[in-house]
């Protein structure tokens, strides 16, 4: 049951209706609402495979017991370690066991290795990380211990963010459960618009781009360098629209139910350097890795060499988090190197003083500098996406070599790529203009949230919904980040 499926629309409508019933006075109990949402979340997850629910339950029980024991006896580290190790072992078995066994066997030339006949539970990486962060936060006293099992279980399994994030912190979500939150008209109007925005990104833009990207990455040897470049650009837009679209849908769903999630993307493709890119891309994962991996490793507090090593470890594991494949590891590694290089560059070359006196000239120079910085960053990011998308190093190598040597082949100027670039550009420019109007001048993405009580706003909203239905790619195309 994906957010873009009909079954989800039926499911969500039922959930909303049931939540509306809890607004009636005799049913109006917070505990009942939480229980309904918990049951709905387990139903949502069990839709894929009911056995997965037990896995999530085990993780929840482990986190629940560990956190309570940590709160009782903070000096006893046993429960902290068990609260960390149990989720990691589960993740390791389900996601990485076969990968490590096969890689080990390949390196040492061992044949007849046994692999586990298991399927990867959807979204396991997301809820494992949520459970981990809860246990650690309780230990660090950043989050209060949750003694109500239902509320903790709801935090880990809350269906809008369950299978593809954003990775929500307990300190952000649990306090919301203390408040009187439920479906209401204003939240619903905002939530449904954010959801539609995400739906458009996913089923109109990302899914149509996937048609071209899949074609080219399946048989790159058939295509001209121009088509390959376009496919790489298409993939960089596809993965952004796919994942940020899902995040928007998750944020929109939660909003409809009365809960707030923070943004997960902030216009990553306007980044002027790779460090900035990671502050804008998959924000919930980047900040998770920083807080629970990079900083505990020592962060930048133990000298330059350790900073670079910590950076590399974080990014390599971040790469591996995306999937059990060497290409993901390489993707993380290259990003790690780039982050180190950028840090060295910043240390060696501090920003040049502004010697240009004329304000207009200075602005122009700054614009040119920014433009090239964004261009270079995007070139690098796109290059890395080749590794991320290709199913093997040989495919990635073939694509890179064919582009560099400007090989001949089929030229396909896919019209959805052109449309996607225009959509991305116009949305980005709008966001930048809006940012300039704010006091801070910081971009923070934006959602087109209309006032649906106004006639023409309502017309635009209906028109948008009509376009989504009419232009949607209706083949089956799962969310890219589900596999993680």
């Amino acid at each position, binding site marked *: 049951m994906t957010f873009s499926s009909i079954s989800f629309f039926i499911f969500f409508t039922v959930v909303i209706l049931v939540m509306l019933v809890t607004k009636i006075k005799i049913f109006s109990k917070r505990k009942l609402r939480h229980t309904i949402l918990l049951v709905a979340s387990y139903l949502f997850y069990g839709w894929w495979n009911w056995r997965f629910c037990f896995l999530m339950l085990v993780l929840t029980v482990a986190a629940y017991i560990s956190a309570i024991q940590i709160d009782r006896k903070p000096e006893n580290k046993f429960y902290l370690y068990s609260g960390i190790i149990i989720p990691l072992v589960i993740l390791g078995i389900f996601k990485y066991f076969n990968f490590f066994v096969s890689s080990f066997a390949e390196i040492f030339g061992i044949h007849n290795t046994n692999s586990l006949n298991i399927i990867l539970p959807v979204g396991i990486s997301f809820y494992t990380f949520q459970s981990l962060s809860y246990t650690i936060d309780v230990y660090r006293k950043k989050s209060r211990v949750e003694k109500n099992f239902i509320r903790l279980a709801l935090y880990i399994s809350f269906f809008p963010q369950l299978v593809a994030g954003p990775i929500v912190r307990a300190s952000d979500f649990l306090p919301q459960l203390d408040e009187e939150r439920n479906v209401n008209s204003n939240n619903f109007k905002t939530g449904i618009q954010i959801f539609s925005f995400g739906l458009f990104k996913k089923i109109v833009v990302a899914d149509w781009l996937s048609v071209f990207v899949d074609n080219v990455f399946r048989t790159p040897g058939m295509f001209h360098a121009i088509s390959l470049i376009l496919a790489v650009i298409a993939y960089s837009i596809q993965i952004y629209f796919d994942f940020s679209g899902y995040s928007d849908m998750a944020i929109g769903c939660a909003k409809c139910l009365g809960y707030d999630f923070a943004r997960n993307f902030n216009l990553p493709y306007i980044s002027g350097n790779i460090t900035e890119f990671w502050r804008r891309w998959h924000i919930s994962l980047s900040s998770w890795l920083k807080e629970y991996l990079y900083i505990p490793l020592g962060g930048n507090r133990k000298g330059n060499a350790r900073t670079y090593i910590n950076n590399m470890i974080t990014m390599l594991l971040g790469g591996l988090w995306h999937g059990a494949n060497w290409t993901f590891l390489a993707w993380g590694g290259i990003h790690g190197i780039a982050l180190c290089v950028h840090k060295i560059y910043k240390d060696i070359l501090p920003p040049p003083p502004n010697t240009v006196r004329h304000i207009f000239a200075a602005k122009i120079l700054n614009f040119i500098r920014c433009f090239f910085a964004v261009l270079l960053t995007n070139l690098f990011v796109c290059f890395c996406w080749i590794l991320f998308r290709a199913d093997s190093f040989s495919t990635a190598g073939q694509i890179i070599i064919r582009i560099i040597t400007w090989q001949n082949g089929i030229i396909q100027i896919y019209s959805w790529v052109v449309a996607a670039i225009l959509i991305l550009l116009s949305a980005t420019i709008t966001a930048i203009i809006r940012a300039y109007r704010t006091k801070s001048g910081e971009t923070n993405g934006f959602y087109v949230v209309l006032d649906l009580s106004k006639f023409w706003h*309502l017309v635009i909203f209906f*028109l948008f919904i009509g376009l989504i239905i*009419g232009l949607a790619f209706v083949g089956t195309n799962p969310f890219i980040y589900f596999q993680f």
Partner: protein
Amino acid sequence: MRQNKAVKFILAGITAFLFLNILCLVYYNIPVHITTQTGVTDYAWEKHAFYSKMTEGFGYGKMNNEGFNNLRNYNKQPVDILIMGSSQMEGTNVPQNKTAAALLNELFNGLKYAYNIGISGHDFPHIVNNIETAIQYYKPSEYIVIETGSMQFSIQDMEESINGTLKRIPSYDSKIMFFLQKIPYLRLLYLQYRHFTGNGGENGPEQNIIAFDKEKYSTALDAVMKRLHQLSTEYGAGIIIFYHPHLVFGGGGLISEDTVYEYSALFKNSCLRNDVIFINMADCFIEEYNNSYILPHGFSNTVIGAGHLNRNGHRLIANELFRQINIREKADSIQ
């Protein structure tokens, strides 16, 4: 207050729906198909209807006075070449002046006139089912060209097509259904629904084939070809069948035709045995790909190399038909 809200809600919905229909006039505006009285095909589009299609390729044009995709109206003028086929030959995915029929007329430069009655859903058995009526109606003086994108048909369909008893494709052209089909956005929604249920593409006749019984199949196919030959002799017009397979990508930049050899061999031999001219476009397509990496099927907004014939496909077919007809004319004049 609540009533006002409901009225506003409904009015906004209606306004948005109107705007969506205006957009669809350009994006996806397909005429209604109507049962033909003549029986030359199972149905034709509305007469003189404008169409535009941006869901697969970028096609636009105006149907002629018979509801077929031709640049010229049919006013009982002599037809030299009658072209029959499916949506591939109809060519609504490309501009009207770029269809194979239009290009063929351009190549003949007025010396011969080719009239296209290719229309969606009409696979080979449906064409055979209607061919005699079409010949009698248009009286083509030189050739009847039949397009097919497949060589796999159900035996039952073939047998019924010889007798003219194959079930005709229904048209929903009466009253409410007609008016509903006149609303472009609803047509688009219906298309989306068909894609969603897996019926959006071309319905290959091979879907009806359960098992391949070579002997029975060969007998049924021979009977069809014999019938075509008989009609050719009776009405004095040669029959040309041209087959245009999709190309499939292999490893290392190689390309091949997407054809099941057993079927293609049977089809080709059956044509030869019965004096039906058979043109397999595969070699022509592969040569074009090897020379200039151009594919005959697929568009800039669809899966590469899949779906309907694109401009290049139509151009290659027109050139090949022109070449084959000229070769035969020269051979005839020598004799």
